[in-house]
């Protein structure tokens, strides 16, 4: 039987505020345990939450960016459960009246088409602390520095039909929140993570199958793997006559599998109710307009501008606007070189390949946008060929200086002196007289051989077009 996969994602976006959502403690990552957990975060008796203005501002920006209605009135609710990294015994979240309503995000599929993924809602909530289960003689260690860090939980519709689409959506969301500067996007530190709801159903069946919720996935690669594993597991189960049960599962990256979290049966009975410590959050129409006016150019708009004003293909434009850093890098390079095509090709080509190889992001590139532009300028003015430029780029990457310095030190300047190249051509012909005769008699395949030999003799510094032309001239002599 053929199955269709149905996926919905809940993405937790950690908002890049300086202080926590309900207290004035710092949210900086990596501090010594519990040094950023104040009386409010610890839920000491008598404390009250006071809402962070910037968290509301960031949620509003997000709502506008996904074309959602930002609620004129939203309410905080208590989500009750007991766990030692949640000192109050409840998490302050939003339930019936979230701050962001229904919106959408468009993703690009492989074939170049666009698919609209619905966003059901996004709500503000506080993060919990961290539990450390190792090394304390049978006890669990609790660090509450993260407790109270603002999160925006973005819930999608079950609109995705493959792991690939889920990854595309997650990447698009990541790009959006970093463009908006509401999240640092650091997935390793947990600033952007997701839960995936996965189910399968026979093709043609209208109702959804029972779903498994895979918790806390913090990389694009893991999302893809976890979903693929889970889909296989569910299909195998059904084919063997079993039944998929609704449950929470954990993805284990080391074993590349998901497994059940043996949660207690009442675990999902959160008994939400409006938090009496907090009043409704009211957002006025004037405030909305003010926030709308300050929104930066969003990925979609930037992509369209690249297509319209730079003449890039939708594919190239999507690649170059995938992150704000990459787009900024690209624009700096264009500004210095004045050559869109050359800049786009080299950034999408050599630069991307090099970054992938070292598993770095553009922000961590060993070659700055200015230095990279310096290299492209030397290609543009024919000082070096594209081939030599790759060698220069490699040297620049390894910290050997600017393009000009590398070209100078390694003596890579392209030879344009016709006389010098001609004598190399003559030498190669003299050394390969037999083949030259064959070439002359019409064996055109040998042309590549001769051009190659001359380039080799010039150590790649001769201009290939010029070499070609000189050999052709010799053939007519």
């Amino acid at each position: 039987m053929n199955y269709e996969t149905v996926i919905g994602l809940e993405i937790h976006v950690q908002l890049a505020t300086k202080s926590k959502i309900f207290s004035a403690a710092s949210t900086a990552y990596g501090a010594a345990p519990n040094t950023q957990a104040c009386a409010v975060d610890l839920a000491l008796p008598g404390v009250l939450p006071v809402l962070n203005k910037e968290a509301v501002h960031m949620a509003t920006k997000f709502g506008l960016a996904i074309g959602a209605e930002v609620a004129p009135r939203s309410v905080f609710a208590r989500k009750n459960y007991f766990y030692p990294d949640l000192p109050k015994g409840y998490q302050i979240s939003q339930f019936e009246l979230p701050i962001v309503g229904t919106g959408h995000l468009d993703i690009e599929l492989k074939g170049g088409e666009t698919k609209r993924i619905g966003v059901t809602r996004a709500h503000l909530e506080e993060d919990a602390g961290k539990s450390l289960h190792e090394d304390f003689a049978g006890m669990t260690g609790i660090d509450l520095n993260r407790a109270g860090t603002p999160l925006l939980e973005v819930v999608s519709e079950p609109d995705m039909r493959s792991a690939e689409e889920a990854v595309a959506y997650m990447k698009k969301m990541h790009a959006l929140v970093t463009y908006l500067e509401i999240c640092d996007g650091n997935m390793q530190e947990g600033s952007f993570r997701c839960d995936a709801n996965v189910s399968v159903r026979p093709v043609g069946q209208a109702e959804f199958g029972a779903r498994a919720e895979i918790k806390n996935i913090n990389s694009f690669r893991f999302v893809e793997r976890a979903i693929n594993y889970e889909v296989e597991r569910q299909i195998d189960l059904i084919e063997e006559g079993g039944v998929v049960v609704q449950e929470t599962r954990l993805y284990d990256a080391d074993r590349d599998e998901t497994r059940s979290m043996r949660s207690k049966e009442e675990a999902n009975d959160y008994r939400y109710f409006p938090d009496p410590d907090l009043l409704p959050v009211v957002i006025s129409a004037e405030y909305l307009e003010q926030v709308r006016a300050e929104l930066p150019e969003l990925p979609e708009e930037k992509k369209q501008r690249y297509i319209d004003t730079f003449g890039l293909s939708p594919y190239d434009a999507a690649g170059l606007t995938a992150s704000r850093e990459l787009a900024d890098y690209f624009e700096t390079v264009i500004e210095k070189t004045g050559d869109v095509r050359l800049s786009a090709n080299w950034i999408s080509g050599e630069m991307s390949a090099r970054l992938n190889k070292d598993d770095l992001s553009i922000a961590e590139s060993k070659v700055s946008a200015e230095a990279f532009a310096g290299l492209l300028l030397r290609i543009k003015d024919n000082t070096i060929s594209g081939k030599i430029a790759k060698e220069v780029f490699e040297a620049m990457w390894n910290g050997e200086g600017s393009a000009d310095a590398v070209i100078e030190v390694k003596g890579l300047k392209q030879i344009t002196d016709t006389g010098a190249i001609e004598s190399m051509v003559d030498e190669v012909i003299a050394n390969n007289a037999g083949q030259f005769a064959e070439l002359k008699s019409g064996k055109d395949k040998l042309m590549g051989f001769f051009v190659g030999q001359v380039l080799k003799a010039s150590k790649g510094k001769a201009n290939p077009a010029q070499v070609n032309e000189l050999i052709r001239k010799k053939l007519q002599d």
Partner: protein
Amino acid sequence: MSLDADQVKKIAHLARLKIDDTDVPGYVTNLSNILEIFEQMRTIDTANVTPMSHPVEAVQRLRDDEVRETDQRDVFQALAPSTENGLYLVPRVIE
């Protein structure tokens, strides 16, 4: 609407309340009586009444995003039964 003994036990468990089995019938009666009052209120026509999620006609005040808390870990941890390397220690929880 009335509660049965199992529901009372479940609610107590969710709230981490330890209740004596002999007290359960009493809780069943008392809690059911409270629900009975809600049942009576439900008969009132509220079609034209705006739901009230808060008793005060006020909106949430917002705080500027500034770090104002200093590290008071030593003071707080003096209250804790057990700490180590700056962590609060609790009976082991295993998921």
